[in-house]
C-alpha cells in the first residue's frame, strides 16, 4: 500500500522507485504497447474507462490518467505488475472481474499486459487521438482561484441596497410599499417570530426595527436559524441516542451572542476555539458546543474505533465548512472534490485541526475554576449531582473526554491521510493546514497560534479560527459573504446565493454579486456586527415592498432573483407554534435553561429538548429538519399531518380555547371577532369576514371552535 501512495501523491515519489534499467525497459514497453497492448486496452477497456464512460472514476486514455487510478485507488504500479490492481482484476483474483461482463481475457493477452506494466506501462500516444490528460484535481491552480466565491471582496461603491438592486433590475422598479400594518406584522414575525401586539403601529418603522432588534425575542428567533446550520441536537444519535443533558448551554450561547450583537468573527472564533481564547469564560466555553453537536455512536466495536473517530472529526470539519464557508469540504474525504478545488490533502490537513478535540463535560465552579465534571450520582433519582457549579458540555481539549461504550480510546494522537477515506489505507501523517484556494499566500505561520506554557490545548483550533476570519489572506471574505447571505435569506425567503450552504460550483450562482460583496464589506467595516446589516435590509425599499401579485414581474423573473417584489412565505414550524401560543395568551417567556420534550410546554419552541430519536412531532410535520448534518434552507411542504395537528391535537385545541378566553373582554360577537383578527392577523375583519364569523357563532359553534379556525387559516401561517 505504501507504494501505491507514493505513486498517487507525487511524481517525485515515482522517480524514487525507478529501477536502474528503467530506460531500457520503457523502450521495450513501448514496443509492447504499439504491437499489442494498445489494441487490447482499446478493445476491452476503453469503452467504460475513458471512452463512453469513466466507470469507477478510472480513465486509461492517457498514461497520466492511468497512473492516477480511480475510486479503487491506483490501478497500475509501473514496473510492478504483481502490485497492480488491474492485474488482479483481469486475472479474476479480485472483484470486480475485468473486463466487466465479458469472458476472461486469454492468458497470452494477460501475460503481455503484465509484461508491459513490468516495463513501466509506457504510452506512445493516447488511446484516443489528441486527448489530453485530465487536470489533476489534487492541484489548486490560479484558474481555480478565479471562482467568484474565492476572490477577495470587490470594492463596491454604493449608498444603499436599493441602489444596487435597481441597477440590475432590467428596467423594472420596486413594487409599491406594503401597508404599514402589513409591514409591522412582517417585521415582528421576521425579527422575533411572534405576531405584533394590537397597538404596534404607533411607532415609526425604523424605531420599531431598533426596538425589536434589541428585544430578547430576536435572539430566540434568529438563533434557531443558526441551530439548523449547526445540526444542533441534545442527544448522541445512533443506538441508544443518549441524552446530552448539558448541551443546551450552546443553544443559550447562540441566543445571547445574537442578542448582544457579538461580532460575527468572534462568534465564529469562539465556536471553534472559545476555550483557547478565554479558558475561564463560560460563554466562550459554551460556544464550542458547535463542534460537539453532531451524532456519535454509543456502541463501538474494536474494529470500528478508528473509523468512528474519523467520522467524528469529519462531522466537525464538514459542519464548519458548510456552516461558515458554504463549502462541502467533506466530499474530499475519499477523493479530491471534483467540482471545487478541495484536494484530499487539504481535507486531511484541515481535519488534523481536530485530532485531540473531543466532547467533554466540565464543571464551572462559583470561584471561577473549571474542572472536568466529576459525576456522583443521586442514587434515588439516578441523576448526576452537581454542587455549586454549572455543568456544561463543551468540545475542546484538556479535560476528561466523554466516553461511550467503546472497545478503544476517545481519540488517536495522530491524524493520517487516508486513501478513499479508509482507515485501512493510511498514508503519511497529516500536518495542519487549510484550503489552498483560500490561502493567499499559503503561509501557515501567519495564522499559527501557540498556546501559552502549561496549556493543555494544542492551539490548532484557534489557528484555524485565525485563518477562517482572515479577510485579506485567509477565508474571511467568504466567511462574510456566507453570513450576510444567510441574513438576506431569512429576511426575503431566498438568499442572494439561493444555495446558502453551497457557494461552490455545484451551488446556484449568486444573483446579485455586487450587492453581496457590498453587504459583506459593510459587515467587516462595521466590526462584523450583524444588527447594522439587519437594519440596512429592513429599512430598504426592497424589503418593504408589497407582496401583491404582479404577473408581469413573475413572468420576467420567476425566481425573483432581482428582488423587485416580495414573495409571501410560510412561517417555520417554531414560529407557527410560538405564534399560536402567543395569541392564546399562554406563552411563557422564560429565557434559557434546560428544555423539555413535553408538547404541552408553554415556552418558545427553541427551548424544546432536541433528542434525535424523539423529535417533536408537531415541529417535524412542519419541516423541522433532522439535525444530522448542516441544513442551510428548510423545504416548505404542505401535507395532511399538518392539518391533522391543527384540527385534532390537544395543544391546538387548548390554544384556541386560550384565545377564546382572551376575547371575552371584548364584549359582543362583533367586538370579539374584531379583536381576534387584530391579534391573529394584525388587521380588522372585512364586513364579509365579520358576517361569516357571526353566522358561525350563531350556528351553535363555540368561540373556541371559531378561534381554532382562525389559527388554522392560511393568513395565520403566512407572512405577507
Amino acid at each position, binding site marked *: 500500500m505504501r507504494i501505491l501512495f507514493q505513486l498517487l501523491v507525487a511524481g517525485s515519489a515515482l522517480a524514487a522507485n525507478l529501477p536502474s534499467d528503467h530506460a531500457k525497459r520503457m523502450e521495450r514497453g513501448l514496443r509492447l504497447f504499439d504491437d499489442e497492448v494498445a489494441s487490447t486496452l482499446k478493445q476491452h477497456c476503453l469503452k467504460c474507462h475513458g471512452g463512453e464512460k469513466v466507470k*469507477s*472514476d478510472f480513465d486509461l486514455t492517457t498514461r497520466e490518467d492511468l497512473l492516477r487510478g480511480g*475510486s479503487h485507488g491506483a490501478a497500475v504500479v509501473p514496473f510492478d505488475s504483481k502490485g497492480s490492481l488491474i492485474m488482479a482484476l483481469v486475472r479474476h483474483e479480485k472483484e*470486480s472481474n475485468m473486463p466487466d461482463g465479458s469472458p476472461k481475457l486469454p492468458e497470452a493477452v494477460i501475460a503481455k499486459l503484465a509484461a508491459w506494466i513490468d516495463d513501466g506501462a509506457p504510452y506512445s500516444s493516447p488511446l484516443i487521438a489528441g486527448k489530453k490528460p485530465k487536470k489533476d484535481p489534487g492541484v489548486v491552480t490560479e484558474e481555480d482561484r478565479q471562482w467568484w466565491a474565492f476572490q477577495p471582496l470587490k470594492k463596491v461603491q454604493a449608498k444603499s441596497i436599493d441602489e444596487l438592486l435597481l441597477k440590475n433590475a432590467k428596467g423594472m422598479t420596486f413594487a409599491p410599499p406594503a401597508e404599514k400594518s402589513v409591514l409591522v406584522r412582517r417585521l415582528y414575525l421576521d425579527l422575533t417570530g411572534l405576531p405584533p401586539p394590537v397597538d404596534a403601529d404607533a411607532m415609526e418603522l425604523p424605531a420599531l426595527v431598533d426596538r425589536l432588534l434589541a428585544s430578547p425575542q430576536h435572539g430566540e428567533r434568529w438563533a434557531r436559524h443558526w441551530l439548523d446550520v449547526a445540526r444542533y441536537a441534545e442527544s448522541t*444519535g*445512533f*443506538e441508544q*441516542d443518549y441524552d446530552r443533558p448539558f448541551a443546551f448551554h450552546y443553544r443559550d450561547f447562540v441566543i445571547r451572542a445574537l442578542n448582544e450583537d457579538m461580532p460575527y468573527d468572534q462568534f465564529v472564533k469562539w465556536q471553534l476555539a472559545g476555550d483557547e481564547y478565554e479558558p475561564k469564560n463560560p460563554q466562550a466555553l459554551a460556544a464550542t458546543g458547535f463542534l460537539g453537536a453532531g451524532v456519535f*455512536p454509543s*456502541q463501538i*466495536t*474494536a*474494529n*470500528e474505533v478508528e473509523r468512528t473517530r474519523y467520522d467524528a472529526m469529519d462531522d466537525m470539519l464538514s459542519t464548519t465548512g*458548510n456552516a461558515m464557508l458554504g463549502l*462541502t469540504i*467533506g*466530499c474530499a474525504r475519499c477523493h479530491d472534490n471534483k467540482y*471545487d478545488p478541495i484536494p484530499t490533502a487539504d481535507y486531511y490537513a484541515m481535519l488534523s485541526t481536530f485530532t485531540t478535540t473531543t466532547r467533554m463535560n466540565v464543571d464551572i465552579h462559583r470561584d471561577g475554576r473549571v474542572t472536568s465534571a466529576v459525576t456522583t450520582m443521586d442514587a434515588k433519582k439516578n441523576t448526576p449531582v452537581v454542587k455549586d457549579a454549572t455543568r456544561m458540555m463543551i468540545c475542546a481539549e484538556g479535560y476528561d473526554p466523554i466516553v461511550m461504550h467503546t472497545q478503544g480510546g476517545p481519540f488517536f494522537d495522530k491524524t493520517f491521510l487516508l486513501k478513499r477515506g479508509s482507515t485501512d489505507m493510511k498514508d503519511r501523517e497529516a500536518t495542519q493546514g487549510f484550503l489552498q484556494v483560500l490561502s493567499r499566500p499559503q503561509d501557515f505561520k501567519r495564522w499559527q497560534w501557540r498556546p501559552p506554557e502549561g496549556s493543555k490545548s494544542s492551539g490548532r483550533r484557534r489557528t484555524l479560527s485565525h485563518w477562517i476570519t482572515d479577510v485579506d489572506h485567509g477565508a474571511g471574505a467568504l466567511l462574510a459573504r456566507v453570513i450576510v447571505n444567510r441574513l438576506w435569506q431569512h429576511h426575503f425567503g431566498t438568499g442572494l446565493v439561493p*444555495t446558502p450552504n453551497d457557494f461552490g460550483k*455545484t*451551488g446556484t450562482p449568486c444573483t446579485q454579486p455586487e450587492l453581496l460583496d457590498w453587504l459583506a464589506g459593510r459587515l467587516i467595516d462595521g466590526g462584523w456586527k450583524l444588527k447594522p446589516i439587519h437594519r440596512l435590509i429592513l429599512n430598504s425599499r426592497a424589503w418593504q415592498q408589497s407582496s*401583491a*401579485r404582479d404577473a408581469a414581474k413573475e413572468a420576467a423573473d*420567476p*425566481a425573483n432573483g432581482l428582488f423587485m417584489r416580495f*414573495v409571501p412565505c*410560510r412561517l417555520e414550524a417554531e414560529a407557527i407554534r410560538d405564534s399560536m401560543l402567543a395569541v392564546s395568551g399562554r406563552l411563557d417567556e422564560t429565557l434559557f435553561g434546560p428544555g423539555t420534550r413535553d408538547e404541552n410546554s408553554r415556552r418558545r419552541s427553541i427551548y424544546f429538548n432536541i433528542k*434525535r*430519536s424523539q423529535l417533536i412531532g408537531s415541529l*417535524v410535520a412542519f419541516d423541522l*429538519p*433532522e439535525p*444530522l*448534518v448542516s441544513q442551510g434552507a428548510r*423545504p*416548505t*411542504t*404542505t*401535507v*395532511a*399531518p*399538518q*392539518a*391533522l*395537528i391543527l*384540527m*385534532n391535537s390537544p395543544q391546538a*385545541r387548548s390554544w384556541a380555547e386560550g384565545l377564546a378566553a382572551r376575547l371575552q373582554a371584548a364584549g359582543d360577537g362583533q367586538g370579539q371577532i374584531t379583536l381576534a383578527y387584530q391579534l391573529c392577523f394584525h388587521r380588522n375583519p372585512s364586513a364579509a*369576514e365579520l358576517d*361569516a364569523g357571526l353566522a*358561525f357563532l350563531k350556528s*351553535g*359553534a*363555540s368561540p373556541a*371552535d371559531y378561534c381554532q*379556525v382562525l389559527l388554522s*387559516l*392560511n393568513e395565520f401561517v*403566512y407572512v405577507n
Partner: protein
Amino acid sequence: MHPPTLSRREMLARTGGGFGMLALASMLEAAQNPFAPRAPMQVGGRAKSIIWIFTNGGPSQVDTWDYKPELARRDGQTLEGFDPKTGFFPGSVGGLMKSPFGFRQYGQSGTWCSDLFPKTSMHVDKMCFIHSCWTGSNNHSPALFMMNTGATRMGYPCVGSWVTYGLGGESDSLPSFVVMSDPLNRGLPKGSAANWGAGFLPSVFQGTWLKPSGAPIDNLAVPASLTPQRQRAQLDLMARLNRQALAGSAVESELNARIESFELAYRMQTAAPEAFAIKDEPEHIRKLYGVDEKHCGHFATQCLTARRMVERGVRFIQIYSGGMENQQSWDGHRDILGNHSGFAAESDQPVAALISDLEQRGLLDQTLVIWGGEFGRLPIAQKGAQPGRDHNPHAFTIWMCGGGVRGGHHHGESDEIGFKAVLDRVSVHDLHATILAAAGLDHERLTFKFQGLDQRLTGVENPKVVKQVFA
C-alpha cells in the same frame, strides 16, 4: 428527477407526501409533479409495492436458509486463521458449531430449509434466495443503517424513502411508506427512526412509524371537546375564509394546496382507521395468519395489516421482526437454538400466510416481499452455557418473493461452512440496486441533488443489479 419549470419550493408546496404523498392530484398536472404517482423507469421488475420483513438483529444463515453439511462434519474444530475481531465479542470465540436445527428439502426446486420455517418453506418455489450477501459493519446500528440507507453513518435516506421519492404514492388516504416495529415492548431496532428517515430527501418521504400500541397515527381522532359535525362546520368556514383571501396572492397554488390538505386530513380520519381494521377480516383469513394465536398473533396482525395496506396502494411497508438486540431480537449471541426457535415461531405462519394471501388475491405478482436483516452470524460458536453465534458481516442470506422475481432460484454462494460469501458476491449496494430495479427504478437515475452532488441510494462504487433474480 427535477421538473423543468417548478422550483423545489413550489414543487414541495404543491405535493402531499409522507402521508401517502397525498398528491393533491386533482390540482396538479401529473407531468409537473414528481411526487404524484409515477410510471416506473422500466428497468427490471414489476413490483408496485414492497413489504420488507426485516429480521432485526441478524439471523444466522447457516441455521435458516443456507444449508452447510460441511459445517456439521467439522463441528467442534477450530476455524484456522479466524480474526477474533470479526464478531462483537473477541473474547468468546469458540469452535465451529453445526446447526442445532434439522434441514430438509422442499418444493420442486429441492431447496434445503431448516426446520425453523415449516410453513414458509412450502413457498420455496416462489422464493429467490441470495446466499452471497455481505456488508461492511459488524455492529448493529451501522449495519442497520447500511442495510436501510446504504451508509453506515447516520442520516441518509432509506430505501423506502427513495422508492416513494421515485414512484410517489397511490393512496390518497394513507401514508405511502409505513414502518411497524415490535409490539411486545422489546424495543425499536438500534438507531430507531434513523432507519426509516428521509435524510437529505424532503422530510415528506420519511417512513410513518405506526405506533405499536394505541392509535397507530397521531392526531387522527377528533378531540373530545369537538364533534365531527362541528369540525365539519369548522372546515367549511375555514375553506370559505381561505378562498376569499386567495385572490391576488402571489402564492395562490401553495395556499390552494393548503386548503386541499385540510380536506384530505378530514377524509383520512375515517379512511386510515378502516385500513387498520383487522377485525373486519373474515375468520378464515384471521386463522390463516394466526391472528388469534398467542405465539404469533402480534406478527400476524402486522402481516395482515401489510396486506391491507398493499391493497390500498401503500408503496413501501417495513415490518421489524424482533426488538432492539440480544435476546430481544434475532441477535442470538446466547442460545442460538432458543433464540431462533422463538423468533421463527413468531413469524413463520404469518409470513407464509402473507405470501399465500397475496397470491390468492392476485397481488403477489406486483408485490415484492423481502426477508432479511442487517448481517449474518458466524459458523463458530460464541462460547457460553448455551452457545450462540456472534455477528458476521461476511455472509448472509436474504430472500425475495413476488414482484417478478424468479422462484426457486438460488443466487451466489457462501463458502462450505457459511463463513464468507465467495461466489457472485452481492454487496448491500448491489442489493439496493436490485430492490429498486424490482420496483422499476434505475438506481443510477434515481438521484437527488444535495450538497452539490447528485446523490443516490447506491453510492459511487458502481454497484450492479443482480439481474439473475428476475424471472
